[in-house]
């Protein structure tokens, strides 16, 4: 089992590892070669990009019994734990195309989706109202982006000068995205095209970058 990749540090590899094309710069090539082909992340990306059933089989072998153990612990019911393995691994298969390294380690990704399926299974079993599901409570990564951009735009324009002082503290990839959106006033789609990165990657970087800026500004005020 590989150790957890640090979320913030891993994003540079994302587009390279994901589209599996030759790296565009030598720096990215170094990062790409650091990705272990047998890591959970590589397997998950292979499942997402190529419907790689062999990779899925490996992931299944690594995680099914752990998911079962988590299910037994949370539900205290072996049948429900069995259902959880089925549903969680099905979700891994279905959502693998939405995973990229910006979303953190594959283990965390699988952990959170297992937790979410478990919540829904327990609610169904207890016949609780279906008003809210796990995906309402723990929104998928990036879903909050558009709202923040919308809300923050006005105040940010006034504070660009201040924010610029914090630019240097942002990792280059996040800075580039924030710059595209807030300085050049591009849409998400335009910025993703300009930077030659997937839209999801752009949104995650924007979220991370804005979170960091917000944090920096918040501590100053």
């Amino acid at each position, binding site marked *: 089992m590989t150790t957890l990749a640090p979320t913030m540090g891993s994003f540079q590899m994302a587009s390279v590892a994901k589209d599996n094309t030759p790296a565009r710069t030598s720096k990215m090539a170094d990062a790409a070669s650091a990705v272990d082909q047998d890591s959970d992340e590589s397997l998950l990306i292979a499942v997402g990009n190529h419907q790689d059933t062999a990779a899925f089989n490996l992931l*299944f072998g690594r995680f099914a019994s752990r998911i079962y*153990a988590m299910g037994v612990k949370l539900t205290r019911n072996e049948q429900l734990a069995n259902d959880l393995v*089925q549903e969680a691994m099905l979700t891994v298969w279905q959502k693998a195309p939405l995973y990229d390294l910006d979303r953190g380690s594959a283990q965390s990704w699988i952990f959170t989706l297992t937790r979410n399926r478990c919540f829904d299974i327990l609610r169904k079993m207890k016949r609780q109202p279906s008003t809210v599901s796990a995906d309402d409570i723990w929104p998928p990564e990036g879903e909050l982006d558009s709202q923040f951009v919308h809300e923050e735009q006005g105040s940010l324009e006034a504070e660009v000068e201040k924010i610029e002082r914090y630019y240097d503290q942002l990792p280059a990839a996040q800075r580039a995205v924030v710059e595209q959106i807030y300085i050049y006033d591009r849409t998400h789609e335009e910025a993703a095209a300009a930077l030659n990165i997937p839209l999801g990657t752009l949104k995650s970087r924007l979220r991370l970058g804005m979170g960091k800026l*917000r944090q920096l500004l918040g501590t100053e005020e």
Partner: protein
Amino acid sequence: MNAEVKFHPAEELLIGFANGTLSAGMNVVISAHIEQCAICREKTSRLEAQATVDWLKSTESVAADKDDSLSVPNFSHMVADITSQPQLREQALEDDSVSEIHMLDHSVKLPKVLAKVASKGLVWKKLAGGINQASVTLDDQTQCEFLYMKPGSQVPVHKHQGTEVTLVLDGSFSDEMGKYEKSDFVVRDKSHTHQPVSEEGCLCFAVLDSPLMFTSGLARLLNPFLRYRFNRATSMG
């Protein structure tokens, strides 16, 4: 900016949230706070990473098939069925239909999870002291409600027998211990006797939780809650 949020969930609650061990009602109110609070959002990501590490560590022997206390069935028959299913290429679009509550002179945009909670319609009831209440049922362990305090209203002095979380959605209210504004996450339990007042008016979402929520794992850290009975003792008037 979210710099003005002063009151946040305790780390123990966020640990429960990250691990999925809390009741639906408590999860909902934490989720609504997190949507508006970058600090807690970041904390939660960190706690989720920690929860993952704990999970991997605690299931190491199970994964290596060396845990005799748990007999793990053979799941391999599931694989073929799963991989015959189609994959998702895009995140499902959100349904933004109901997301506002209309007040006397303005509307309040609700956090997404509460918009979902309110999407089946709210029935408002008038209580004493200029308070309006709309209850929603999320599970059998919590009492959840939207509360609207008119400007100048005052809740009669009361005590809680459970633990009550109040999230401010709009306006503000005060009690003996402070003033609470938008996105503040206020926790009150048996030890507090309080008398909230609102000068400017206030919309809140409140969750009264029972001890049943804390069943296993890390959530046991919250066991002091077990002393409290799940019974609201609001002595009105």
